[in-house]
């Protein structure tokens, strides 16, 4: 036991000697690794955010209530107030005939061009005004909301009820397009981290080459020389990854307040996901493992013992 303790302490002082020998490059390595891991973590966060955004938007799928032609505004207002009081309704939005036309003309989906032309032949504006109702399909009172939607067609003033398009689709499409990109980036970042570690450990070996040779001459085992170098690679990666996690956590905390105003006005806010704990732990562990591998490669290629 005492022997193990003293052996451990001499290994530890070797690690310290290593870190000191190339402290400048160690610090640079830690910061570079932090940047690399932060980028990767941001990608993971972005992906989780797209997922969550798609899910929430899916749940908030709108129900469009087309109104009777020429329904007077006070009645529209009364209808709106009545709807808002119903259980489960989250949001209710009025779209006038003019707005509907405007939106139709703005939308540049394929097939619309022909429709737009046909519209131009018609006199005036054939599009009806509507109320758009949103409810949360995941909420406990969703059944009540669904019942409401079912009977809305019989309400006075409402011409027709249409369940809107899948609002989650754009976010989901983005997320699928994002997958291969994230994987490629992840691979490149891992490679970058490996190169950084190999290089700093190589610098340490160069800085301590003579010392290490003399230690061998007085009876140091190859393991006594190698293990601290492997640990150095791991410690750098570990420190860098932890730094990155702290940065990302800070970013996530500051996001709503700092970044929301930067979004274009009227854009639906994405549902930012903080890096889940087990993702963060996995990221740190993966970085540390890459650190060990980097140390191993450097020791293999550059250390002569």
């Amino acid at each position: 036991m005492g022997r193990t303790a003293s052996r451990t302490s001499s290994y530890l002082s070797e690690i310290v000697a290593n870190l000191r020998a190339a402290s400048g490059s160690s610090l640079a390595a830690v910061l570079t690794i932090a940047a690399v891991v932060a980028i990767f973590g941001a990608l993971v966060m972005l992906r989780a955010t797209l997922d969550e955004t798609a899910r929430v938007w899916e749940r908030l799928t709108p129900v469009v209530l087309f109104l009777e032609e020429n329904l007077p505004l006070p009645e529209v207002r009364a209808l709106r107030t009545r709807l808002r009081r119903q259980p489960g309704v989250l949001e209710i939005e009025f779209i006038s005939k003019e707005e509907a036309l405007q939106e139709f003309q703005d939308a540049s989906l394929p097939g619309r061009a022909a429709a737009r032309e046909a519209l131009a032949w018609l006199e005036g504006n054939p599009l009806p005004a509507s109320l758009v109702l949103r409810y949360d399909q995941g909420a406990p009172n969703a059944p009540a909301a669904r019942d409401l939607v079912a009977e809305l067609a019989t309400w006075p003033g409402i011409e027709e009820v249409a369940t809107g398009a899948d609002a989650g689709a754009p976010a989901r499409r983005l997320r699928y397009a994002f997958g291969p990109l994230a994987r490629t980036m992840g691979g490149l970042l891992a490679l970058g981290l490996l190169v950084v570690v190999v290089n700093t450990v190589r610098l340490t070996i160069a800085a301590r080459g003579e010392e290490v040779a003399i230690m061998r001459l007085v009876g140091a085992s190859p393991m006594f020389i190698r293990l601290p170098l492997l640990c150095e690679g791991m410690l750098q990666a570990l420190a860098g990854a932890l730094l990155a996690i702290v940065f990302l956590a800070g970013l996530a905390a500051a996001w709503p307040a700092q970044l929301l105003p930067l979004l274009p006005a009227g854009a639906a806010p994405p549902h930012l996901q903080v890096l889940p704990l087990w993702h963060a732990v996995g990221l740190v562990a993966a970085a540390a493992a890459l650190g060990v591998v980097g140390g191993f490669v450097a020791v293999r290629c550059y250390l002569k013992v």
Partner: protein
Amino acid sequence: MSEPSPAFQYCDVYLAGVRKAFGPRQPVLVEVTLDVLHGEFVLLTGPSGAGKSTLLRLLHGELRPDAGEAVVLGTDLATLRASQVHLLRRQVGMIFQDFKLLPRRTLFDNVALGLRVLGQPRRAIERRVRHLLHWVGLGRRVADYPGSLSGGEQQRAAVARAVAAEPRLLLADEPTGNLDAANALDILQLLSELNLRGTTVLLASHDASLQQHLEARVMTLEHGKVLGSHGANR
């Protein structure tokens, strides 16, 4: 690997027909045959460039013989694996011709090195190192760096480091190389003292006159061979 013959039991060093060349050049050691018995003090002399350092480095596991038989403390050097060399070195102390002290470590750390690589407890190392530095007359210089020491002081520090782990065999390469007569005598005194306490000593020096101050068997290395062996054969 053949079983070592029983004669090895009494030999700390056994060389038979050892040959060593660097590259395609004329071999430095042509056919060296010698033995050093356990507890002996052997002085190996020979002109500069005769191959004394080469021979000692070979015994220390730094170089491998090209041919011949070489056994140190029962270890066959021809088959010794690189990953096992440290086990031999923990029993064979070496005073290097160029000291090989670590310039960025204090005297204390330099001497402690050989004990730290063994994983000895901190307390024990502290006690042993202070004792050794006191013994070689450097008790007041523990915290100094090698660069601030004179040549003779560095040489004495090298002696302290070489014997720190109580090796069974001590190889001393020109340990009096750049010392004045009085300092040289001091070092010889230290080595004799160690030898009296049971350490086998093999001292290499171009200065054959050292034998006047030593009770040692003298061997001469010349033209790649050990020529003579005479003197105290205890």
